């Protein structure tokens, strides 16, 4: 059997949970069985192909219609292997899906195209979450628009995040580190940009982070920069280059043509309206309905910060 260590490193993501090790052990078993089956079938194929190539057009071939014993064996042995794999997979799946009752619960929200996290004490974060090492964590997840999927390769787990209902996922990270989160269910233009990081840290660091106001003593423009890097970066650049949405450099104070033909100056009111109700006034050349609303998701401080930050990009 392949040891799980040899399948990790280059060909697998890091193993950060106990369940991940169990998944890899099972995967190793399946790989070995698959390899043996392929060698038997393909090896037999090549051997026969070489040995029984045609010598003359009048070669006689034996008339072998079937062989009951052989056919029983090559039906029954695969069946047994399939059943063994199935039961083992069931056991691992049960571990993946059964959250311990003492888990730390975090609410997760997926929205085109970022992830936000809310802790019980009111601390929120976007595009990154912190959890203590060795702690059972349960994520209760919902979506504000289309289906997303919360995928952490290092934990070997994923769960679709569906609008209109909650789904959940749990893990217990055993090693400190920063782990990649992907969106695994196709959700539109910035699907591949819908990423996040899970920072697994010591309990002290986690408590510090949890109790800490992320914007404490920060000037408004720096608050805006943080909002940008966690929420806006998927669609807006800091240059004057257009991505999904307009680039922010020099946009403030500019006169823009709207869809209807009228003009508007990008001022505080327009930026605020575009954050809260993006479809109210769409600039010509940008598709309608792409930007989601951030109403109820950004605080007044964050909105003011974002306006201040855009203003600063001259």
């Amino acid at each position: 059997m392949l040891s799980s260590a040899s399948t990790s490193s280059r060909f697998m993501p890091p193993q950060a949970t106990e369940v991940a090790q169990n998944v890899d052990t099972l995967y190793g078993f399946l790989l070995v069985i698959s390899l043996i089956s392929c060698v038997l079938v393909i090896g037999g194929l090549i051997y026969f192909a070489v040995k029984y190539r045609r010598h003359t057009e009048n070669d006689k071939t034996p008339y072998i219609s079937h062989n009951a014993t052989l056919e029983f064996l090559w039906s029954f042995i695969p069946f047994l292997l399939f059943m063994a794999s199935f039961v083992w997979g069931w056991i691992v799946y049960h571990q993946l899906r059964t959250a311990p009752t003492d888990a730390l619960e975090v609410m997760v929200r997926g929205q085109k195209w970022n992830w936000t996290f809310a802790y019980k004490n009111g601390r929120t974060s976007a595009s990154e979450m912190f959890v203590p090492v060795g702690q059972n964590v349960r994520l209760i997840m919902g979506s504000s628009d289309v289906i997303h999927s919360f995928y952490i390769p290092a934990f070997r787990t994923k769960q679709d995040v569906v609008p209109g209902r909650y789904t959940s996922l749990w893990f217990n990270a055993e090693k400190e580190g920063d782990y990649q989160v992907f969106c695994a269910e196709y959700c539109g233009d910035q699907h591949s940009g819908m990423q996040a990081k899970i920072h697994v840290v010591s309990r002290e660091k986690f408590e510090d982070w949890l109790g800490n106001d992320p914007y404490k003593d920060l000037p408004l423009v720096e608050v805006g920069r943080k909002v940008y890097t966690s929420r806006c970066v998927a669609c807006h650049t800091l240059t004057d280059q257009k991505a999904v949405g307009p680039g922010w450099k020099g946009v403030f104070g500019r006169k823009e043509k709207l869809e209807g033909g009228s003009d508007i100056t990008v001022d505080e009111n327009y930026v605020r309206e575009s954050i809260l109700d993006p479809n109210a006034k769409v600039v010509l050349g940008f598709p309608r309905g792409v930007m989601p609303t951030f109403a109820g998701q950004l605080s007044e401080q964050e909105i003011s910060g974002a306006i201040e930050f855009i203003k600063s990009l001259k």
Partner: protein
Amino acid sequence: MATATHDPNKNYINEKSGIWSWLTTLDHKRIGILYMISVMSFFAIGGTFAMLLRWELFSAGRNIMDAHQYNQVFTFHGAIMVFMVIIPGIPAFLGNFILPLQIGAKDVAFPRVNLMSWYCLMIGAAIAFFSLFYNGVDTGWTFYTPYSISTQNGTLLMVVGAFIIGFSSILTGLNFIVTVHKLRAPGMSFWRLPLFIWALYSTALLQILATPVLAITLLLLTAERVLGIGIFDPKLGGDPVLFQHFFWFYSHPAVYIMILPAMGVVSELIATFSHKTIFGYKAIALSSVGIAAVSFFVWGHHLFVSGQSEVAGILFSFITMLVGVPTAIKVFNWVATLYRGSMRFDSPLLFALGFIFLFTIGGVTGIILAVIGVDVHFHDTYFVVAHFHYVMVGGTLMAIMGGIYYWFPKMFGRMVNEFWARISFVLIFVGFNVTFFPQFILGAMGMPRRYYDYLPEYQSLNRISSVGAWTIGTGFLVGLFVIIHGMRKGVKAGPNPWGGKTLEWQTASPPPHENFHVQPVVTAGPYEYR
């Protein structure tokens, strides 16, 4: 066999002339050729999109298109290849041409319906392509809700196109079932049917039972988009996961609509080119029916992480394992047929052996994905992309190519250039493995599918994959050249250049209108090499 009343120089190709005689033909062979031209054209378009995708993925970041264009390109690549190439590829093209010949019939049971099904494909395809003028489609070929409800208007056209193409599939299936039941030559009992016919018959059952579910689903999706009736959209009180159940209730059996006929082709090729009776004829025949039956109850393995219940997931994992058994039986039987055979390595056999090689890898990785505890990691990653390409391209397309080269002398009365046919095989086979094997590793490393951009650690494997894709592209271009050259300049072929035993080899190449000058009578099984 030809008697004096028949002009031996007349065949289905030169019997009438003019484009109109083709567009209104009721001859199953001519309709088969119409399908061949359409499917090859769609394949060229879908393949071009694939080349563009691999170009974009050659390096991380933007290469030749933006994210929105990329999403449209992979949507069109998938939708074209599934609905317009692989599903009609073998049944409607090779099946149409060969099925009546192999059972000793003059034509299919309903020639007019047969022509209508080709028009359904063409009209559906035209509507689907028309969506390009309405901002295109960016939903992926799966049209998952609620994304497909909220995105651009072209989606509706694509959905209507797929709906109409579905009728093409239903009508062909219906036609084949009736033909096999009613028009077999005297003496051709069910246990004397060639295995290609068994495979087409099983496929036809799936086509008429499963495709209406897709039609209903797409209709509901249209009703939701146009009339605002809440079925799948949670904003209107619907359930988005319900769409996935409906969609895969069709689309999983559809996977077998794609692969079963390919297995039938391979059975023919293996028997003919090893000059040996097929090992375990009944087991292969019945496993086709078995796979078709079980395939209706495995759709939930596409929903392991969708939020369906744990019990449902486990049941679907179990039933999926059961499909593995008849599939394994087929593979073992093919290999056993080679034992003590007399093999001639013409290009059709190369494609058949290539099929077994690639399909075996596609099959075992399918089992890995069916193991539910492991699938949670692999679901929606490149591992899945690699797996289904090994089955659909490594399986079905290899069989189509092998089948074209095999039946080419029957269709056009000429042989292809064997040297270049083998070159096309080598390029496609090697290119295929270079393209898709690295994708298994990418998936295991965690790279999700449908990603426009990726992390730097995935770049080197993506580069290898792109180079492989261009190699496949070259291989298919060579194949196209071989086919066109063969039609115009190929050496004249006799009625039975390969020494085949099935009925299509007992008539002239190309066959006359209504196939046989004298009604054949069957007195033995299909692979009597004694």
